Every structure is written in C-alpha cells, then in structure tokens.
C-alpha cells in the first residue's frame, strides 16, 4: 500500500520535471559573440554561458574553453558560471569576442558554507558555524577526519575514548545536551544523512567540514539537530585535464606511557603479608613462593618481566596510500579516489586495515538539469581483542598486563599459562598470563559500507530550482570473537572449551529529500530574498544475528570454529535475531532575507514525524530564527581601513532529539532466547517483557540562544569570532533508574532539563606574510558549563553506575539538580588509620578502635592500623554509604581549546598543533583496582611499595586479624617503627576493594603537543620535466608530548558510552605516539 503511494509520488515528480521546462520559450538573436574561458591560463570546459535577463538559451564551453552564442542585441550581459568557480557577469557592449578568466572559489574571500540544503558565502552566515577545509587537513596525516577535528574548532571536541586503531571518535558540539545515551551530532555527507559519517570517508577525500553549532543553523535539520550537525562535502572533479595525485605516509608508533608496578621482591613480600591470618592463604603462599623467609631474598635476583612491554610494547607500523584522479570531459566531471590504511597497533595481535573507494561524477544535461552521483565503498578489517571490555573486571584484559606476577615461575615460559592460577577466585577475577590471554582471545571485525547518493537539480525557471536527492547507505558488520579455553569467558561459561561468537549486523538507510528554492538577488537594488521548502523521508532498518557456540574441541582454531560452527554446541537461546525499522518524515522551510547587505534575517521551520513515538506524539515542530547586522556596511564603518568586516549575530531556535530505541512506547515481549526454562529437560524459550513501557514518550527538545560577533581587521589579516550561547534542553529522554522492586532497573522518561552555557572564541591571524615567509595562527578556546536543571517528578537525583568492577559495587556517579550531568560520587578519602586511632591491650595484644575514631568497618570490613580511612561527613562516627558520600569529581572541563600554527619558508612548511583541556576530573578506576589486594597473587602499582606493612623485615607477622575479627599486633612502638615511612594504606583485600573514593579522582587537565609537521616541496621548475606539478615530503610526530598531572595512561579518556558516567578510565586501550613520514604528489 505504501509502496504504491511512493510510486505514484515518484511518477508525479517525474511528470513535474517533464512539464515545467516546456514553459520556457526559445528565441532567435542577432549578434554572435564568441570567446574563450580560462582559469590560470588553462581552458575550462563545460562552463555555462547564459544571457542575463534575456530569453536566449545559454551554451557551454567546449574542450578548448571556446564558446559561441547568438544574442538578440549587443546590450545584453553574459553570465559565466561553473561549479567550484566564482560566477562572472560581463556586459557585451557590442563586442563580438569576450575572453574570461574565472577564479576558483577555493580562495579565502569566497569561502562558502553549507548550511543545510543550501550553500551560502561565509560572510553572509548568520549562524554559529565552524569549518575545517582540505587545506587544514593536508598537514595532518590521519586516518580519520574526526581526529583532525579535535581541538581545531571552538566548541567542538572530537576525542577518542581509547587508543585502539578503530576506536570510536566521540564528537561533541557544545558539550552535548541529551543524557539518554547518544550525544553525537548528525552527519550530512554531500546532502545525505549518513550514519558513522566520519569513519567511512577517507580524510583525503574531504573538501570541507562545516560544523553547525547553534539552532539557527541546525533547526533546518529538526530531528536530531540538537547535538549539532556536521556537514561534510567531499571533493568533486573539476573540468580540465585529468589530474592525478598521490598522498602517502608511513609511520611507526609506540606506547606513549607505561604504569610502573612493584618489583618481584616486593610483590612476593606483599603476597606473604596478604596471606597472614588465613591458613588457606598461608599454605598457598608457601606452595607458590617458598617455605622460609630467607628464600624470599632470592626474588631480589629474578628477572623482571614487564608484561606491559610484552603485550602493549611492540612498535606499531601504520601506513596510508591515497590516489586521487579527477578531471572533466565534455559535460562530465569526475573524481575518483582510492585509499588504503594499514595499521599494526602497539598491542599484540591488534591490526587495522581499511580500503576506501570513492567515485563522484557530475553530469550537466543542460543548463537546467544537472545530475550528481556520489558513491563510496569502504571495507575495514580489525583484528585483535584489544584490552578493553564494556563488561566488568572479570573481562578486562588490561588488568592482567598490570597485575600479573612480574616474573616467571620456574619452568614457565613467557607464553605459558599460569601454573599458579586459581580459576575459582570469586567474581572470576583470577589472573591469566597476558600473552596467552591476548592469543587466546581472537577477534576479527569486518565492516563493509556502501553508499550511493544521487541528486538531480533542475532549474525550473529563473530563480526557481528543484533538487531531489536519494541516498542509500548500507552497512554490514561481521564480528567474530573466539575465546579459547583459558579465557575467563570460557572458564565461566564454556566448561574451559572454546567459545565462538559470530555477530552480524546490517543497517540500511534510504533517504530522499526534495527541495525547492526560490531566490531573488538585489530586488530594487537592495533586497535579497531566498525561500526554500522541502520534504524528506528517512527509512532506517537494522538486522542483527548472533550465534554463540561452545564446546569446541580444545585446540580448535578460530578459523576452524567459524568455518564449522555446527561442530560446537549452541548456547541455549541461540541463534538470536533482531530486526527493527525506523521511519521519519519531515517538512521544512527557510526564508532568508537581506536588506542592503546590512540587515539579515533567517527563519527556519521544520516538522518531523518519527515512528519511535506513539501516534499523537509522533510529530514535533522545530522553529528557529536569526538576525544579523553587518556593521561594516554602515556608513560609519564603510571606509574604515582598519576594520575590514564586522558583523553581529543573534539566533534563537528549538531543535529536537529522538535518539532512543524503537518501539519503546509499546509494551513488547522479547522472544530472542534470552530467557528460557527447562520443562521436560527441554529449554522452552520465554516471552519476556522487553522493558518498562512508557506510552507518553515524545520528542526531546533543545532551546538554543546564541549571540555572536565576527570581526576582521587589517584586510582580514586578523579574524575574530566570539559566540555566547545558552542551550536549554527539556523533556529530556532519560533512562531513569527506577525502584528495582518493580522488576526493571530503569525506564525511559521525558523528564528533566539540562542547560549548557558557554562562550567560544576563535581567533585567526596571518601574523607574517613576506615573500619567503608566512606565519598563520589559529587559536580557539571554549568555556562550557553544564547543569542539570530539573529531573523527574519529585526527583532530585539519581545514581548511574559505570559498572566497571565487580557485581554489587556501589554506584559511582550522580545526576543531581544543580550539578553537571554525571558527576563522580563516592567517599572522601582521609589517608589511613594510624596507631593514634587505636588502643592497645598489652596483655592480649589486641588493638581496638579508640572511642571517637571514625569507624569504617561497615564499608571496608575489620578496621586495623593502616586501613584506608574515609571522612565522616555527617559526623555520626561511622562511615556509611548513605550518609558519607558526596560529589568527588567534576568531569566537565572549565575550558578546552587548541592552537594551530602554520609556517612556510621558501619551499619549507611547518605546522604545530597543540590542544588543551583544563579543570576536568578523571575517575581513575584502573588505579583503584591496581592497588587493591582483592585477588591473590596479583601485582600492584609501585605506589603501593610504601604501603603500611604488617610483616617485619625478619618475616615476623606484626599485625593480623583473627577469624573472629580481632586485630592483633606487636606493640605500638614497634609497629610504628616498622611503618614510619608508610605513605599509603595497606591494600584493601575484601570489602570496599572496588569502592569509589576521592583518591581515585584526578585532575585531567592537559596540554598536548598533538601534531608537529615539517614539510618540503620540491621547486616546481625541477618537477615539470617529470610531469609532476607538485611534490612534497613531510615528517610528522603525532601525540609528541602530553603535559599533565594525570597518573594513568592518558588524560583524554572516557571508556563508557553513557553520557551519565563521563571521564571514566578503566581498562582503556592505551594511546600511542607515532612518527610518520609522508609524501604528497600531484601529476
């Protein structure tokens, strides 16, 4: 039924296209004019030549740039226009030969910006938009355009959560408003909405990236515009000869930082300490490490194994090759590119390969009808499980590289599984030789992305243009995970036999937009008017299949397992299938009006209907408006030679967000094999409730206000943009933790309000411009404050959990009115208990807590001298999780920014790019786990070398806890002497080992020397003989240095995808430093 209406609709559209051109009328003329169109002295083919205001049909230039046209009279004007070049209009004045030279629009002054279904000159932009162009990208040899964005644009952050080659780049515009889960901006590539906009495009293929920041710009995208819109324009062919260019680089990379751990001797010493007071542990200790105290001295001489080096220390090699060919023949222009990325990362078995093909073609049927085709095909292959896991500690791999015994036991090789392993450790936290583990956890992810966009532009009449765009985007991921018999997964769920998991995910998107624009320039000399109306549909389907198979014979290889999944035994409830479809339909309109190039007004409106909401709640209407005053064009500034441009902008708008799962307004039941019950010894798959339904779900809306100023002085040598904004999000779609006694952990509700307020400054300067030397600098800084303004009914706060540790761990984040979204929540550390906190009974040798000393036993178990201590915030004498937790960290930076500088000297060029963040806290959960003694035989960070000790240098137990919970010890004087240099508590063994406290919160401020490049271009005269028009060699260092107080691997980290738990560092793939050599060549 629906298909029918779509067909009908398409048919009518075609009809419309056919009928309308006939309305124009052909005429005869009297004067023949001919001439040649060139650019930089080269002929331009396919330039359209039209008669201004006349009724004469236009023409196009031939391959020599020649044209011939018959005019009615000699008083007309001819307009020469060509994509990528600025239009020129020349009065004929009875001349019969007119030669024209067109300028490429790539020049600074004619910079254009895509603002949504339309392109405007940067000077006329009313909204807050920041851009990066191919010119900025060329200096940075990166494999992802997102990496290139980071720190370059005020108000835009693009950070990788971790250092793996395929790590998600998290792009945030003005901090992100939503707290539902996805704050990523909307990606529009060549006019088509695309998922994963940045990962499937080679940076070398990008012409410009425009980031639309405020609602004045994004409201035309209505739905999903709330988090900013990133508009990417890819390179297109230019008319003229075939141009071929090659860009390539090869580089090496290394782990940027390591964590230092205890020496073998200290490791064994602590294991000895840890075993005291428990007969089982003591027996195990003797079994593992020796019988007498004297033998422990031998561990001073054993060879140290640095597992971080072994697992993450290899030298990575990355290379990229890109070939581009572009040109034009007759009415056709094309651009073809092929890019190959090959990355061997620093972690064992971790590699990344990507092939990208792109082809774009523009065909001009006539002056009225143009067709543009863009296709892309990307294939990515990622190998290696890396170190991180979205699950808790049992599945973290990094912990093994840090906590594993720092030496080999006798007869153990580097890649031998652990002879001391106790697989029955609670919570599955036993340690595994990190090398064997890395080899035992196989993972291969293959992604293919295919993309086709076709647009037809038809000039229905003068000033009236119709454009229809159809985009098809197909994504397929095949993810193979194989867990061999020693892995925690196999031990816990697979009876120590290999487990194979095969996930297939397919996403298909079909979009169609139809836009009419009508524009009048200089009506009565002073009115510019633009009107746009359009309609868009978006159809998004997902399919996923998961097969989970266990019980393969030991020594089955991953290839064998995936080749013959049937040889294993499916987990009950598998395979699983899930399919969804989401449709969205929109109508939108925009009016631009400019008066005398002084006053500008833009009004946008968009109505969006989404299938994610119940009928009646499907439609959201999102209006916006902006106003600008170009003071420069006023009399009092017109002739001012200092100020070359000055513009003030004000914008207001409302945009929507609906990034939630499908069908949440319906009570639905899953039938995916997730739950089942044994009846007659057969698993009966259950229908179970998918979640707590909420029929009232509706659009989230984000009200945004923006004030801006753009100033250029000294003939645009210095440019300054300042924006002040206040974004208020309401009806936030919030996954609210609900009383677990209702049977669910959370429910999605339209509650809550957040605000983001901030200032952004972007300052550019051409500091020096001499014959041989230029110096360009671009500085940006952004200040953003984020606040929860309101939550649900009667709700002032709730506690999200980062879930990084063990089950039952207390929540470690808070969302509370008046605080930033997702602040770290926990106990406040107060050093450790000293002997002053205890009374000693000399007769019995028992230490008891002095009256008045804070009692933390409810949190950490038996309190003894040297136990970690917390502040008793409510003063009731006991540490209590209800009353003594507070906000211990704020993950929002006070400001972030970057400084990019580019220098050229004769044939040399150099660029230096720094970025920085100040005032944000990081929750260093690694540190919490890497300093506790929860698991036996585990190593710790070397800060624990100065711990409170409970064994004397002679091996005598100085302090222990009896099985009835009494603290026994040697006399206070001796214990004090033993611990006079202690700077940190004794490792927490039991209760509280994974509890968040202020000690784990660290200042995440940093200044990073992100990128340094030095390039040399061969002089052109030497190249001509080789038929090379440009040849440049360069050397780049990426992530050269980071200045920070942060003690973890890297301060730019956030491993959980929930916006409610930002700034968590747990088991992230460590970042690397790379040195790259590259070449750019044009033929």
């Amino acid at each position, binding site marked *: *039924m629906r298909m029918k209406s779509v067909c009908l*609709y398409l048919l*009518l559209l075609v009809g419309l296209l056919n009928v*309308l051109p006939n309305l124009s009328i052909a005429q005869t003329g009297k004067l023949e004019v001919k001439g040649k169109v060139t650019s930089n002295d080269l002929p331009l083919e396919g330039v359209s030549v039209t008669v201004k205001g006349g009724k004469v049909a236009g023409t196009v230039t031939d391959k020599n740039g020649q044209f011939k046209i018959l005019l009615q009279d000699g008083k007309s004007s001819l307009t020469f226009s060509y994509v990528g070049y600025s239009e020129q209009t020349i009065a004929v004045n009875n001349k019969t030969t007119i030669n024209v030279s067109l300028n490429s629009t790539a020049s600074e002054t004619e910079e254009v910006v895509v603002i949504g279904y339309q392109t405007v000159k940067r000077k006329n932009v009313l909204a807050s938009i920041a851009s990066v162009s191919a010119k900025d990208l060329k200096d940075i040899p990166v494999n992802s355009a997102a990496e290139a964005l980071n720190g370059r644009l005020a108000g835009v952050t693009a950070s990788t959560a971790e250092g793996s080659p395929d790590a998600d780049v998290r792009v945030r515009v003005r901090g992100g408003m939503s707290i539902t889960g996805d704050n990523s901006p909307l990606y529009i590539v060549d006019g088509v909405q695309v998922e994963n906009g940045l990962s499937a495009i080679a940076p070398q293929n990008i012409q410009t990236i425009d980031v639309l920041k405020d609602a004045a710009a994004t409201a035309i995208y209505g739905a999903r515009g709330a988090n900013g819109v990133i508009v990417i324009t890819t390179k297109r062919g230019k008319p003229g000869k075939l141009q071929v260019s090659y860009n390539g680089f090869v580089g090496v990379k290394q782990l940027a930082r390591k964590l230092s751990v205890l020496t073998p001797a200290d490791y064994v010493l602590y294991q000895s300490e840890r075993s005291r007071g*428990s007969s*089982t*542990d003591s027996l195990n200790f003797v079994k593992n490490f020796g019988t007498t105290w004297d033998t422990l001295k031998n561990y001073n001489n054993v060879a140290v194994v640095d597992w971080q080096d072994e697992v993450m220390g290899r030298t990575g090699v990355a290379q990229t090759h890109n070939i581009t060919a572009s040109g034009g023949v007759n009415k056709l222009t094309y651009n073809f590119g092929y890019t190959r990325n090959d990355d061997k990362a620093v972690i064992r078995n971790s590699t990344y390969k990507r092939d990208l093909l792109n082809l774009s073609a523009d065909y001009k049927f006539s002056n009225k009808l143009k067709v543009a085709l863009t296709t892309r095909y990307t294939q990515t292959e990622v190998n290696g499980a890396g170190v991180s896991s979205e699950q808790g500690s049992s599945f973290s791999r990094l912990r093994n590289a840090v906590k594993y015994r720092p030496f080999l036991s006798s007869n153990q090789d580097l890649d031998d599984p652990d002879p001391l392993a106790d697989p029955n450790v609670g*919570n599955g936290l036993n340690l595994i030789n990190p090398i064997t583990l890395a080899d035992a956890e196989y993972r291969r992810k293959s992604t293919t992305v295919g993309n086709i966009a076709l647009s037809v532009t038809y000039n*229905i*009449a003068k000033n009236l243009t*119709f454009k229809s765009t159809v985009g098809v985007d197909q994504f397929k991921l095949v993810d193979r995970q194989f867990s061999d018999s020693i892995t925690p997964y196999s031990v*816990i*769920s697979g*009876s120590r*036999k290999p487990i194979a998991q095969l996930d297939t995910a397919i996403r298909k998107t079909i979009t169609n937009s139809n836009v*009419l624009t*009508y524009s009048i320039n200089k009506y009565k000399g002073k009115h510019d008017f633009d*009107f746009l*109306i359009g309609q868009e*549909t978006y159809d998004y389907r997902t399919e996923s299949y998961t097969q989970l198979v266990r019980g393969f014979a030991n020594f089955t290889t991953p290839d064998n397992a995936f080749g013959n999944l049937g040889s294993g035994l499916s987990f*009950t*409830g598998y395979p699983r299938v899930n399919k969804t479809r*989401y449709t969205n*339909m929109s*109508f939108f309109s925009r009016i631009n009006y400019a008066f005398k190039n002084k006053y500008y007004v833009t009004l946008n409106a968009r109505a969006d209907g*989404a*299938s994610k909401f119940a009928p009646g709640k*499907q439609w959201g209407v999102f209006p916006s408006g902006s106003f600008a005053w170009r003071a420069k064009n006023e009399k009092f500034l017109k002739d001012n030679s200092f100020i070359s441009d000055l513009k003030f902008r004000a914008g207001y708008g409302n945009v929507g967000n609906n990034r939630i799962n499908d*069908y949440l307004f319906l009570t639905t*039941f899953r*039938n995916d094999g997730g*739950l*089942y*019950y*044994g*009846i007659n*010894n057969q*698993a*009966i*798959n259950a*229908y*179970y*409730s998918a979640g707590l339904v909420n029929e009232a779900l509706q659009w989230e809306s984000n009200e945004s206000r923006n004030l801006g100023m753009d100033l250029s002085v000294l003939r645009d040598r210095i440019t300054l943009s300042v924006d002040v904004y206040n974004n208020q999000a309401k009806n936030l779609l919030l996954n609210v933790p609900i*009383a*677990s*006694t*209702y*049977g669910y952990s959370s429910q999605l509700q339209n509650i809550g309000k957040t605000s983001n307020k901030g200032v952004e400054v972007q300052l550019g300067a051409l500091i020096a411009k001499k014959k041989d030397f230029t110096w360009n600098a671009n500085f940006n800084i952004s200040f953003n404050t984020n606040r929860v303004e309101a939550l*649900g009914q*009667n*709700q002032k706060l709730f506690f999200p959990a980062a879930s990084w540790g063990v*089950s039952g*761990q*207390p*929540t470690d984040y808070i969302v509370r009115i008046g605080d930033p979204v997702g602040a770290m929540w926990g106990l406040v550390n107060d050093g450790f208990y000293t002997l002053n906190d205890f009374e000693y009974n000399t007769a019995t040798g028992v230490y008891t807590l002095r009256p008045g000393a804070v009692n933390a036993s409810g*949190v950490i178990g038996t309190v003894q001298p040297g136990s970690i201590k917390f502040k008793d915030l409510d003063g009731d004498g006991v540490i209590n999780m*209800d009353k003594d937790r507070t906000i211990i960290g704020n993950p929002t930076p006070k400001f972030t920014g970057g400084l990019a500088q580019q220098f050229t000297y004769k044939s040399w060029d150099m660029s230096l790019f720094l970025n920085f963040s100040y005032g944000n806290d990081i929750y260093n959960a690694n540190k919490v786990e890497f300093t506790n003694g929860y698991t036996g035989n585990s190593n710790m960070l070397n800060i624990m070398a100065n711990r409170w000790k409970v064994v004397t240098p002679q091996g005598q137990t100085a302090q222990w806890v009896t*099985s009835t*919970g009494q603290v026994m010890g040697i006399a206070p004087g001796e214990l004090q002497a033993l611990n006079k240099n202690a700077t940190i508590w004794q490792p927490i063994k039991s*209760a509280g080992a994974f509890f968040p406290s202020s000690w784990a919160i660290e200042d995440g401020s940093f200044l990073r020397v992100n990128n340094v490049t030095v390039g040399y271009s061969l002089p052109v005269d030497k190249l001509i003989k080789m038929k090379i028009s440009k040849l440049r060699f360069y050397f780049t260092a990426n992530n050269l240095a980071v200045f920070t107080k942060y003690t973890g691997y890297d301060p730019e980290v956030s491993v959980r995808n929930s916006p409610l738990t930002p700034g968590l560092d747990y088991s992230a793939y460590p970042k690397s430093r790379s040195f790259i050599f590259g070449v750019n060549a044009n033929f």
Partner: protein
Amino acid sequence: MKTKNLYKLTLSVAAIVLLSFNSCNKFLDQKPITDVSTEVVFSDVPSALKALAGVYSRMVGDAGYGIRVSLYYPLDTDEVQGPTGASDNDRRDIARYAATPGNAQITNPFNQMFAGIEYANICIANIPKMAMYANGTDQEKKKLQRMYGEALTLRAQFYTEAIRNWGDLPANFAPASTLATSNPFPTRTNRDTIYDRLLEDLKLAATLVPWRNELSAIGDAADERITKGTVKGLRARIALYRGGFSLRQDGVVKRSTDYLKYYQIARDEAAEVMASNQHSLNPSFRALWKDQVNARAVADPNGELMFQASGIGGVGAGDTKLAYYNGPTVNGLGNKSVNILPTYFYAFDSTDLRRDVTCAIYNVAADGSAKIGQAITAICDGKYRRDWISNPTVSPTNAIQYFSLKWQILRYSDVMLMFAEAENELNGPTAAAYNAVNQVRRRGYGQSLTTANAAVDLPAGLSKAAFFTALVKERSLELGGEGVRKYDLIRWNLLASTINDTKAALLAMSNLAAPYNNLPTGMFFRTGSTSDDNRFGPTGLWANSFYRAAPTATPAGTTRVVWLSAAINTTSLARFATGFVTGKSELLPIPQPARDANRNLTQNPGY
C-alpha cells in the same frame, strides 16, 4: 514572469506536500518486527505458556536457585556452613552473617525475584482476560486456568523468598506499567499484609490448578510444572511463615498474636494434600536423591518432589550450579563450598539412612570412582553429588560448572512434617501428628512406611513441647542441606540460641568433651574404595567405626584423616556464623543499589 514563477512555485509546493502527506501516516506506523505485542503473547495457549516460562525462568540461574538463593543465603545453620577462606564481602560473609549493603552477591538475586514478580503480574493481569480463557474449548480453558494459577503461585514463591530474606518490601500486585508512574518510589509494606494477600492468591490458585493425576485429562504432561499439591503445600508453608516469628523493622523478633489462625491454614492445607493421595514418599531416601534428583528425572513416580526449580542451558542465565558449588569434588573439579558441621553428622542416628545421603565424607579421584576420605571439617553436603549424576553421566575431566540439576523447593515429607507441627501446635501430639512424623522416620530408616516400629518411631506419650522439640530435630534430619533450616529456626525464634548451642557443641567436640568424649580422633578410609556411602565394614569406605575410639595403628591399605580434634575449632568453629547478631542477622541488608534507586526503601535493622 514573476507571477508565472510564483505560480510554478505554488504548484510544485502543493504537489509535494499533498503527495507526501498522503503516504505519511502509514509510513510512520512501524510495528515491532522481532518483538511481539501483548496481544500476540496472550492470544493462545502455546504463546501464553512461553510468557509463563519467563516467570518460571526467574527462579533459576546464578541469581536464583541456581546458586545464590539456594546455596549462599540459607547458611550458616546447625546443619551446614559456608566455605573456608578469608572474609570477602561476598558469599563467605553472607554465610557468616557479615553481609554489608555493598555485598557483591545480594543485588542480582534481589532484582531477579522482583523481575519474577513483575513477569508473574503480567501473566496474572492478562491470562484471565484472554478471549480463549472465556470462549476457548474446554481443554484450552483448563490449560489457561492452570497457567493463571501457576502465575499466582510463582508470584507467591518469589515474594515469600524475598520476604524471608529481606523482610517488609514494596507490594506490587499489578504490572509495573500500571504502578510505576504514579508511585515511582514505593515504600515498604508490612509483610503480614503481603502474606495475607499471597494466602488469598493461593486459595484461588488451588481452584485453578489440577492435581497430578488430572493433568492428562487436560492434555498436559507430568513435568516440572506446578500442580495443585504444590499450591497447597506452598500455602501451608507461607501460613507457617505468616504465623511464625520474624525480625520486624523495629529490630524485634516477634510474631503476631493471632498466629494460631495461620497454623490452622497450614494444618488444613497439609491435611488436604495428604488426603488427596496424589503424593507419597519414595520408599528409598537414597533412590529419591540419587535416581530422581541427580538423574535429572522430570517427575518422580511418587510425586514426592512437589516443587522444583528446573535449570537448563549450561550458563549462568538459566541453569544451576548444584553439585558444582556444593557436594564432593571429582578430579579436583568443584567448589565444595557447603560443609556439613561435625555436630550435624553426629545428630543422625548411626542407623538413619538419611545420614549417608545428606553427608558425603569423600572426594572422588581422577578416575571418577575411587573415593578419597575427608577430614571431619571437610564433609560435604551430599544430596546433590556430581558423582551421582546420570542421564547422562558427567566425565571426570569435564570442567563444566552447570549440570542442569533441579533445586528442590518443596518435598512431600516437608508437607507431612508441617502437618505434624501445625497439628501439634493446635491439638497437641495427636495420633495423626504421630503418624505423619513416624512415616517420615520409617522411610528414613528404610522401614515399611505403614508398619509401626518401636525402634524407629517417636516415643509415645510425648508432651506437646517434647513433640515440638522432636519435630525441630526431625525436620533437620529430613531436610538437611535443602535450604529450609535457617528459615525454620527464624520462624520458631530459635536461630540465635541454636547458633550459640552449635558453637558450644563444636567447641566441646573440638576438646573431645562429653558427650563427644568417646568418638574417634582419626578415621581410616580404604585406599581405592569406590563405596559412596559412609558405611564402615569390610566393603565400606571406612575401616573403623564413627562411634568408637580409633585404632592406634593404621590398618593395612588405609589412609588416616583427622577426625575429632582442635581442627574443628580452628577450621569450622572459627568461621561459623562469626558475624551473627540477633535483631540484625535474621535478615539480609537491602542492597545499596536498590536503595540508591529508591530513597523510600529503608534499610533493615542493624545495617
């Protein structure tokens, strides 16, 4: 020119808008593809059964009776205790009554029971509204009535399990979709109110669910699902909890004054089950466990296994770790984490056959059959044994942790003992009360059920109090290691005194003081013996008697293990219920994450 353009513009716009709107409502009407709606689930018998399977499924898995609720929570008692090892804020601390609100093992079971209640609420709200419930064939109607009754029974089971562990709790008797919006932070409801509701529910359920022998008439197979006997037996149990002591929110252990009313319900329900002749005792206590439970039988011929949580799937989501976490190890595989107290072993009469089913004093060697005798502090509970598993058997080298065994929630002998207890409380030790206990005892000793047997039967003429004391012991001998004892002791208000008495007894045993002064200090097991009971004699595992002083010299072909010694003090007593505080330890703490999500959920006394 201008007007023409405007005309075109208007025309084009109108065309686009009209055409689009035409298709737009249909375009936006998307229905789930792989998920299904309530209407589909509750449309016919097989679909509704799948929804009911979702309710059943919340009983099993790691967070259900798969391990935590069955093997972590009911410890320590005078029967069994938890594993050795240091305090861990985990399973060990739960057994030792030292759990904190942040204990890693209480959140998921708490959540899972309430998921079970929610899934049951969805079935209870929808099944009776199904068109087929009113208009289906007779068989369809009866099948749906049974499912409705099963959902009511399962909800009662989840609530009872939650209340006996956590006390008063929010009361949800409708799907969360109808409650959560208006009352997002529910407060705790008095457990008496909830229990009263559950008793009413089960009264209704008993009218809906058929007896065992009525299943074939409605086309249902005899399997692990609930029958009328289950409903009534569970109702008797809940009535005893309702009429028994419990730790109240004010920190006092008490019971309501009208408790006899509930004993009457328990007595009547148990009597009806017994009178129905639908259930009987398996003549062999050992066969019941070895050939029914460990052989993964679907339903036993006697119907003694009245309610079981049936694990399957081999993973933590839906299976059980019975015989992996507890019971003897085989080839070093297994956790052996539930230990029989030395005092409990000696609570059995030497001729009570239940002793050697309940207590396994061995591990199994790598060959899967040779037994290795264990010290008195390392006796395992024996009702779920890896080496007893058949249908199919488990190879000694298999490292699997999930055996798809079924946790026994209610047995017929429990119903008989409940009858005897309630009858005694109401009417004194009548002949009927005696008869119920004596049948259980005769079976335990391998005697004919119906023949009076002075050697085995309870002595005649006991006072009401003495009969009660005998019952307290009999329930322990019959139901040891089945997760019943702790909650029995609480409802009798005997937990604190029993723990103290047990500690004293363990200490006396450790010091070889009376009455333990004549017991052996060492036991000798025959190397290579494959005997799986604890018999002493030429063909048994043991070379000397458990009740006489040990020989001074090691008999040929045997190995000595430590028996009565100070190890009982340092290994068993040292970790036995160390954190127990009456007025606190009768309940678990409410998990911290649950309180973080609902500030109206107050903490239990003492935590």
